[in-house]
């Protein structure tokens, strides 16, 4: 953009010379394309190309030893015709729904506390950084560190047993849906906190006073003013959390101890069996599903103001 302006100015200083002028204008037009080129190349190479590859491979043939260029829809009919796929998709959607509700509630509460109850900007910053501290270690480590906490002889169980609250260790704490959801909520809540915090910080404080002036109680203000105005942030957080949960395989594998399945885990298994075209077809179906979900969210909430 700047370069284009500089070009334009350089051109204006020149004496009126039609050919040179036209050349200058062409150069200016080319300059903006040139400036857009690096990002186009990066996105094309790392984003469009891989997706195209996946789509192409999803129509190929395979056996136990290799994959063969072809055009057949068997991978899709296999995927969509199997009740295992449907069950896995339903299970993944169930995780997404539960994790979404929990992260939304927890995320909103944390963001609300940070935005409205912490008075000074410095303290807000400090507490926000505290929220990000878990992200200093890797996902896997954070997940695995739940095992000594939740295990059969883990912290929770041994404490409860020793305190005499329960007679025997609870079995469902680890390697269960509970553990999967707990770990996911732990991993993904910050993705909900950040955008909601952002929208809450942008709410004009005089709106809250105006609500109070009109006789609204704290809950009424929350329900009628703050939550409607926080919707764009909630939508952005929802997109983050839903896409992350839909694509998750490591949390499901580790925390369920292999007892539950998710779509991404199914793909991973197919890949380890060298069934790349089947995994690719699965990936395309998942991609379409997630895109539909995102489109649905965007239809309900207008997030453009926040971008």
């Amino acid at each position, binding site marked *: 953009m700047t370069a284009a302006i500089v070009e334009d100015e350089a051109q204006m200083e020149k004496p009126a010379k039609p050919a040179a002028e036209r050349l200058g204008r062409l150069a200016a037009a080319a300059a903006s394309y040139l400036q857009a080129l690096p990002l186009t190349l990066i996105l094309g190479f790392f984003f469009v190309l891989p997706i195209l590859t996946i789509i192409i491979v999803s129509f190929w043939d395979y056996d136990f030893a290799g994959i063969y260029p072809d055009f057949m829809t068997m991978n899709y009919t296999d995927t969509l015709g199997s009740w295992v796929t449907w069950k896995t998709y339903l299970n993944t959607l169930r995780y997404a729904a539960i994790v979404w509700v929990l992260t939304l509630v927890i995320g909103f509460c944390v963001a609300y506390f940070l935005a409205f109850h912490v008075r000074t900007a410095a303290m807000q910053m400090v507490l926000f950084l505290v929220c990000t501290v878990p992200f200093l270690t890797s996902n896997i480590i954070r997940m695995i560190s739940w095992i000594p906490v939740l295990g059969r002889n883990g912290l929770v169980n041994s404490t409860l047993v020793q305190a005499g609250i329960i007679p025997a260790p609870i079995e469902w704490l680890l390697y269960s849906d509970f553990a999967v959801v707990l770990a996911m909520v732990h991993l993904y809540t910050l993705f909900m906190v950040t955008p909601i915090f952002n929208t809450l910080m942008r709410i*004009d404080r*005089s*709106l809250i*006073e*105006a*609500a*109070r*002036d*009109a*006789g*609204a*109680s704290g809950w*009424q203000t929350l329900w*009628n*003013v703050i939550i*409607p*105005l926080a919707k764009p942030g909630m939508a952005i957080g929802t997109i983050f959390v839903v896409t992350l949960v839909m694509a998750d395989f490591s949390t499901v594998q580790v925390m369920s101890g292999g007892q539950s399945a998710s779509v991404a885990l199914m793909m991973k298994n197919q890949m380890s069996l060298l069934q790349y075209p089947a995994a690719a077809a699965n990936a395309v179906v998942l991609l379409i599903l997630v895109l539909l979900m995102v489109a649905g969210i965007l239809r309900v909430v207008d997030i453009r103001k926040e971008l």
Partner: protein
Amino acid sequence: MQAAEIDIVSVTKKYGSATAVDGISLKIPAGAYCCLLGPSGCGKSSTLRMIAGHETISDGDIRLGGKVVTDFPPARRSTAMMFQSYALFPHMDLIDNVAFSLKMKGVEKGERRARALEMLKLMQMEAYATRRPAQLSGGQQQRVALARALITDPEALLLDEPLSALDPFLKIRMRAELKRLQKSLGITFVHVTHSQDEAMALADLIVVMNDGRIEQAAAPREVFERPATAFVARFMGDHNVVSGRVTGHGDGLVTFEVPGGQTLVASGRAMEAGRAVDVGIRTDRVRIGAAESQGFGFTAIVSNIEYQGASVKLSVTGAGIEDFTVITDDAAFFASPVIVGEAIPLSWAAGDASILGALDS
């Protein structure tokens, strides 16, 4: 609607160790249009917000129509506030904005929408009823904010710099509308502003504030003609303030000496010699010409001339007075024009220079 008298009794507001409002007392008669006027940071907004109940009162009491409301929440005070940026809810249409307080009270939907529409009609905004605030101009937003404030049937309407977001032309139109509205509703208006023009045009009672204290609370004419303190005289802008020390008195006149050496006379109560005084001299009463008697004028050098249409503004210095303004009628000026650098005699009538008081601190 019925108007309420607002009685502020030695009210103080402290933010930590800083005092924003310092023990002020003020009685605003029922049905009056009161303007709180002062520079930014003088405590006028804090005072308004304490009346509204959006700010706790550190010390003192506020009575509204006879009942003490010091610890009441805003909605129980029968006041309504109009915010500086109007604070309209951006996610609601105009009807829902205006009906908001009714909704909070649990008024049934059909009724509250009907009443809101009626209120919008009163403000001539019914054509926009289904729009969002962002689709309105500044003046229209202000009308909606007024409608939202008035739907609660308040006894007093509190306006926090209501005109500051408007362009100069609209400002003058909306202030006429405010005045008309106050007349027709008959309720008490308290209006915070930093514009002297606005206060002069609107108020029945001008309260000039500075540094958390009230410098003067009086009718506009009195504030203009007899400013109580040097601050008021300077802030209202139509007086020259000359400082000096008293040298003598007699006959309702006080003689004082300006540090530069000039001796002048002003009307005022007798006071002891040596005391520092500020004297106010109306800028539009100063004439070009020699004084009829000693002490009612001086000779000055013109430093700047501004033509303002109906009048001409001369800035002059001389006789130890740094900054002195003369507003003269354009016809009189052009009959015998002066130029920058010229030495001219200035004079005024005995009644036009008066001793200004000071707040005891």
